[in-house]
């Protein structure tokens, strides 16, 4: 179990939260009520015997952006599927409100027969919002991801980055309190990725959701997060945790800050160790 240190919230508020293995039950009780998403001793063994996760515990509160980096195949996607309820964990407990969970997949998963507007309206449709609300929410979300003017385009005519924006907009319409991202920008080019990172950050600063993000990119992790967890090779365990001290709102120039480079270096070294 990790030891969390002091860190700053975007509004300048500072919270101290310490959890130890031997914490009194009442402390844990408080934590459970407070966190928007919490994992406690999560284990996952697939029916074929593959042990994907072992005793993973951490939580993400609203206003926190937590990133997991780890070698591929270590169980990161599995963890998000467990968080969202797509998979049932074989050990431990997850606590999260799944009613309006936001989940951005690695693929944009747009429905090709729907236009951008119709794709963005999909989740509101599934949740039974009335047409006027869903049109308004979709229009706002499309505006927010910078796709105004593309409402009537079909996915086949969009670039990879634009598709990802549509996918983000679709998730935003639900104004989810918990936002899961599974390597969402892995398939786009470096420049688009940097821009999408900045936009994700803007969304986070604005909406203050509880963000759980998965990536292979260390600079992406450090740039976005309040906290970075490094996961070991399979079975996935948390082997190191880094508090990222930079205050929000963050500027793109942060990437060139020496402190940014130093922290990225530490995470990289830890990740290097996690591969073996």
């Amino acid at each position, binding site marked *: 179990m990790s030891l969390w240190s002091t860190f700053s919230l975007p509004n300048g508020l500072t919270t101290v939260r310490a959890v130890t293995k031997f914490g009194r039950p009442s402390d844990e009780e408080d934590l459970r009520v407070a966190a928007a998403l919490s994992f406690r001793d999560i284990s996952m063994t697939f029916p074929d015997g593959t042990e994907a996760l072992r005793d993973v515990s951490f939580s993400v509160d609203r206003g926190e952006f937590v990133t997991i980096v780890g070698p591929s195949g270590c169980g990161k996607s599995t963890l998000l599927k467990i968080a969202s309820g797509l998979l049932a964990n074989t050990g431990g407990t997850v606590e999260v409100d799944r009613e309006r969970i936001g989940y951005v997949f690695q693929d944009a*998963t747009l429905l*090709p*027969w729907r236009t951008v507007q119709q794709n963005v309206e999909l989740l509101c*449709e*599934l949740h039974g919002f009335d047409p006027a609300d869903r049109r308004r929410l979709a229009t706002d979300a499309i*505006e927010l991801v*910078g796709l*105004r003017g593309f409402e009537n385009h079909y996915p086949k005519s969009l670039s990879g980055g634009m598709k990802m924006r549509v996918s983000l907009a679709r998730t935003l319409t639900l104004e989810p309190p918990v936002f899961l991202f599974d390597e969402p920008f892995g398939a786009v080019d470096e420049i688009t990725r940097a821009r999408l990172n900045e936009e994700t950050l803007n969304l986070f600063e604005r909406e203050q959701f509880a963000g759980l993000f998965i990536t292979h990119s260390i600079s992406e992790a450090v740039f976005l997060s309040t906290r970075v967890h490094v996961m070991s090779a399979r079975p996935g365990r948390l082997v190191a945790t880094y508090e990222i001290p930079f205050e929000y709102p963050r500027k793109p120039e942060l990437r060139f800050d020496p402190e940014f480079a130093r922290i990225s270096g530490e995470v990289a070294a830890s990740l290097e160790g996690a591969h073996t």
Partner: protein
Amino acid sequence: MSMPDTSSHDSQVPDMTEPLAAADKLRKQSVQRGVAATVVPPIFFGVLLVGVWYLVSYGILEERQRFLLEPPHAVLTEGFLNGANLAEILGGLWSSTKVALIGLSVSIVLGMSLAVAMSQTKLIERAVFPYAVTLQAIPILAIVPLIQFWFGTGQFSRVIVCVIISLFPIIVNTLFGLQSAERGHHDLFTLHHASRWTRLTKLTFPAATPAIFAGLRISAGLSVIGAIVGDFFFGRGEVGIGQLLQKYANRLLGEQLLAAIVMSSALGVGVFLFFGWLQNRAIGKWYDGGGGAPT
């Protein structure tokens, strides 16, 4: 909500549209070139075929054998320009077209319903699928006498022949299509608690449309064959193109025979093209695959 970072987006939008416009222009040019490339070779080959036809009619066949292959212009004047003959062929063609259309409609409704039922319940799929495959394997000529035995030689029997021959591709393609929705899309629907019905109407059925159209094109062609085979075999009742073919062959009316063959082929090609056109109208906007699975 307002946009967090307006300037970067504003400069970006035209950047994205301009390449699209340029690509459109390029595409138009290559389409024109493509049309020339697809139209010229078949015309050339067609002319060659007509040449060979004349060569056989006049160069190889002697005059008393010429009824075996009358020259193209004779087929044209006897088969297509002679009012009485043309009326007879068109009448038969219309009768067979009706049978084909009714048979195809029945196949579409029946086949798609079966496929949807099979996609919803594994048990139904397991129970029905072997029979659907058997249906496909039945040699149609083996079963036609039975149909005649049970139902007579009327239009109803012909429709049955048509359905038997055209049902399978609809079932298989619809079922395949319904199962083709991506895993990630299913996850998305699961995540948001979509009901079975919502999943069918908003995900699996739309995802199936390209495959369904591929099935429709195959079945449309088969239904024309079914209509002609039924009529040809029964040999009585309302006169369709099948009976005409038989009559012309028996009476050595080579010109009419060839004209009737050309017309029935045109019907087959016509329905095939019609469904291709319909597919393009219905899903061309979003679907950029080809014309579906090969037969």
